């Protein structure tokens, strides 16, 4: 073999922001202040975190629950709320069958309860609001993307932002009442009258890539691995450069 071989490293995607090591390493107490139902299987949990270091849309945190015998369960959750100075953050959690952490949130938790969080974590999926953003999500994969949409609105950003979101039915569409003209919803099992039922397809993605903003889109894909594989292939097939596709897979 020759020694001047160069790997085909075509997909290198740098992180978007520098990450604070201090914030990630300190557990903080978070107090539940409000629970809002979003769909039959998901709800939003508002938490007061007085010393929250602030986050960017798309980042996640680690959350842990501790039982009386010291047993600990910890999970990564995307942050749903936009960055603000309220001293609060919001998480939107699906009730996972048999889920020990999401199960506690959905069946036991009430305002006043405390949990522990550390973060924000990871600069890779963050969107600082600088580049045009094309967001593709399915199910609870819409959560970190909604933080971006909310940030875009709250700051009145002029940079283009579009979202494609897939849900089983209108009833299962998280944040349905909050979605606006930037969003196209796709329904896979049942749809409102006049809308087709089916999977996210090239026909949804192609028009967005045909009308590229100057500098092109930064694509953010979030959902199950199955959705992420499907959606990222649609993007690549429509011409989106692989090095500008960021994927957050739930699992």
């Amino acid at each position: 073999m020759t020694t001047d071989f160069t790997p085909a490293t075509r997909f290198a995607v740098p992180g978007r922001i520098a990450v604070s090591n201090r914030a990630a390493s300190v557990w903080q107490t978070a107090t539940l202040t409000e629970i809002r139902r979003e769909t039959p299987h998901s709800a939003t949990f508002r938490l007061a975190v007085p010393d929250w270091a602030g986050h960017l849309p798309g980042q996640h945190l680690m959350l842990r629950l501790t039982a009386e015998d010291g047993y600990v369960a910890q999970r990564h959750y995307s942050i749903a709320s936009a960055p603000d100075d309220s001293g609060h953050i919001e998480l939107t959690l699906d009730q996972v069958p048999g889920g020990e952490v999401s199960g506690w949130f959905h069946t036991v938790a009430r305002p006043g309860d405390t949990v522990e969080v550390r973060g924000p974590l990871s600069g890779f999926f963050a969107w600082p609001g600088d580049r045009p953003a094309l967001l593709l999500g399915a199910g609870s994969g819409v959560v970190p993307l909604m933080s971006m949409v909310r940030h875009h609105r709250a700051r009145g950003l002029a940079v283009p932002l579009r979202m494609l979101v897939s849900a089983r039915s209108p009833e299962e569409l998280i944040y349905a009442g909050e979605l606006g003209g930037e969003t196209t919803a796709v329904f896979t099992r049942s749809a409102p009258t006049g809308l087709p039922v089916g999977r996210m397809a090239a026909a949804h993605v192609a028009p967005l890539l045909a009308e590229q903003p100057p500098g092109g889109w930064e694509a953010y894909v979030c959902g199950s691995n199955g959705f992420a594989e499907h959606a990222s292939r649609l993007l690549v097939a429509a011409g989106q450069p692989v090095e500008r596709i960021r994927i957050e897979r739930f699992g």
Partner: protein
Amino acid sequence: MNVTRGFTGRPRVANPGLPPGQYDAGDDWPVLSAEVTPDLTPADWSFRIDGLVERPHAWDWEQAHALPGSSYAGDIHCVTSWSKFGVRFGGVSLDTFFDVVRPHGSATHALAYSHSGYTTNLPLADLTGGRAWIAWEYDGEPLAPEHGGPARLLVPHLYFWKSAKWIAGITLLDHDEPGFWERNGYHARGNPWEEQRYSGD
């Protein structure tokens, strides 16, 4: 201890193989890659070791398969908290590749890189001594693309982000150089038994 009111958690199972803060994912094997799964066939695949070595060398698919085989049967641990027990990988021990390239005595760290552009850094000592592999079989079958096939790095005693999917090469260095997740706040070594999840842990 900050006890969560009303939280009991899963039934306690005495499992000495479960590192702190981890749970048993059972039959699930979550996929968490941050990039698009590359369209990479065995014919496209190659693996190279360079940097602080006597003889940099690259292997294609057939050349790598001509090396003596080695397997791993045991557990894997992901930083997102799941662990998976009793997995079986087949491939070639990294020691076999290192025997060919002969690392310099000055080499202390490695930067592994993927055909996707992904990178991750490791102490060289974590890649030698029968603890690391180039793996292309899982459970006796070809490794699936979403799990890093045709071939991935396998370093099962560290958190699994160190086991770079679609492995393309390893560069040996005399210093530590952060890889993809390590630049995004994750720990330089990632030992699950010491819960080295994030930088600063």
